Every structure is written in structure tokens, then in C-alpha cells.
């Protein structure tokens, strides 16, 4: 079992990406942030490392995929409420994200998401506790 995860993603313009995620209300861990990368705090043990392409490339022997063109990963984050989902999507849209899908209400789960300014896909879900949805 693992306590922490660091999702490493490449970004074209680090200051712009930091501005994007800041405007959604997130903060960065200064200990792991410099001009090559920024550590976005998503939860107590959940982190995203936004790395400039050149730095990201140093960690892999494969070419970097352009996330606007194709998708390797969909990162899905749990949210406290429908309002939490809606508010993040609204802020993301205002900050330049695209939202190709409408929100989906499955009764037990409410979901929406966005593609960030580098094309990485984020899903946001609020799961209704059993009993609550009846």
C-alpha cells in the first residue's frame, strides 16, 4: 500500500499552468516547486507535479504525448458535493479549460470534468452516500 501519489504531467508554460490551478483555488507545495516544476496539492496525500516538457522528458525514454491530441490518463477526483464539482468546473472554464461534456447525474453519482490548458483530462465526481439518494 502507498500513502502518497505524485501524478507527473508535462506542461508547456509553467507560470500559466500555475496561474490556472491557483485560480481554481489550489495551492502549491513550495518544497517541491521551482522553475522546472510545481507541486500542486490536491489532497492530504494527493499531489500533481507539473513539469516543464524538457524536465519531464528526462524521466522517460519515450516521446511526450500531446494531450490535446490523445489521452493516456483520466484523473478523477472525489468532491464533497455537487456544488464543489460545479464550482471547480466553472472556475476551470473561466481560466481557459474546455468542458466537452455536460454534467452527468447518475443519482448515486454526479460527475463533470474539464480538459486543462495542456489538454490533460480531469474528472470530478461527487458520490452520494447510500441512503442519501433515496
Amino acid at each position, binding site marked *: 500500500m502507498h500513502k502518497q501519489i505524485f501524478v507527473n504531467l508535462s506542461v508547456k508554460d509553467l507560470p500559466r499552468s500555475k496561474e490556472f490551478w491557483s485560480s481554481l483555488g489550489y495551492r502549491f507545495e513550495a518544497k517541491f516547486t521551482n522553475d522546472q516544476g510545481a507541486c500542486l496539492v490536491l489532497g492530504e496525500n*494527493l499531489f500533481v507535479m507539473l513539469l516543464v516538457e524538457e524536465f519531464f522528458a528526462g524521466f522517460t525514454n519515450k516521446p511526450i504525448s500531446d494531450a490535446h491530441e*490523445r489521452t493516456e490518463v483520466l484523473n478523477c477526483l472525489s468532491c464533497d458535493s455537487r456544488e464543489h464539482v460545479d464550482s471547480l468546473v466553472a472556475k476551470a472554464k473561466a481560466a481557459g479549460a474546455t468542458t466537452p461534456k455536460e454534467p452527468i447525474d447518475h443519482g448515486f453519482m454526479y460527475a463533470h470534468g474539464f480538459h486543462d490548458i495542456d489538454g490533460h*483530462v480531469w474528472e470530478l465526481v461527487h458520490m452520494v452516500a447510500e441512503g442519501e439518494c433515496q
Partner: protein
Amino acid sequence: MHKQIFVNLPVKDLARAKEFWSSLGYSFDSKFSGEKSACIIMGESILVMLLVEDLFASFAHKPVCDAHERVEVLHALSCDNREHVDTLIAKARAAGATIPDEAEDHGFMYAQGFYDLDGHGWNCCAWVAEAESK
């Protein structure tokens, strides 16, 4: 802030991918597992959804990236100690993973990575407590 992350990744052969991750010692959450998906429990708040490609594609809105060819994401998982890292790498290698590099010992951090059967990149990192590394 978010409580949980669900990392969604496409796989070519779900049964084979499940066997791979089982042999590394992980278990699956049956509530989120079915014919086309399997939910690996990686930590209290860290879940990985393996999705067969057509199901993944239906969520992605973009063509699926072949992770053997290109990389969008690298996931780093914290490990308890060096032995934890070494054990996971040994099991991954035995189960058919590609190990591109030797283990790196930075003093404060010990890390080694692998590419799983579908080419997705994983890095196992053990941080040495500050006092310990001196």
C-alpha cells in the same frame, strides 16, 4: 481539497493486467470492478481504474494514447522503504514489466521505475527521513 483520486488508464487485455497487478500484491475493489474495468487499491485514498480501451475511449473524447509509443503521465508512488521499492520492482520484472533504469539513490530518496504491460510508467520512491540520511 479532494479525499480520493481514481487514476483511469486504458488496458489492452484486462485479465492479463489484473494478473499483473495481483502478482505485485495489490487487491481489487469488487464494487468498482466488472467485465470491462478493475479497480486496484493502491492506498487508502489512491485507486487505479484499469479500463478496457473501448470503455476508456468513451470517456476520453480523444483518441487513446498508445503508452508504448508515447507518454502523457508518469505516476510516482511513495513506498515505506528501499526494500518496498526493490520488492515491487522485482515482482514487476517477473510479471513482464520493463525496467528502463537502474535504481537511483539520491540519499534523501531511493527510487526505481517500471513500465507495466500496457506501457504506463510507474515510479516507486522511498524517502529517507531527514535524520536517517545523515
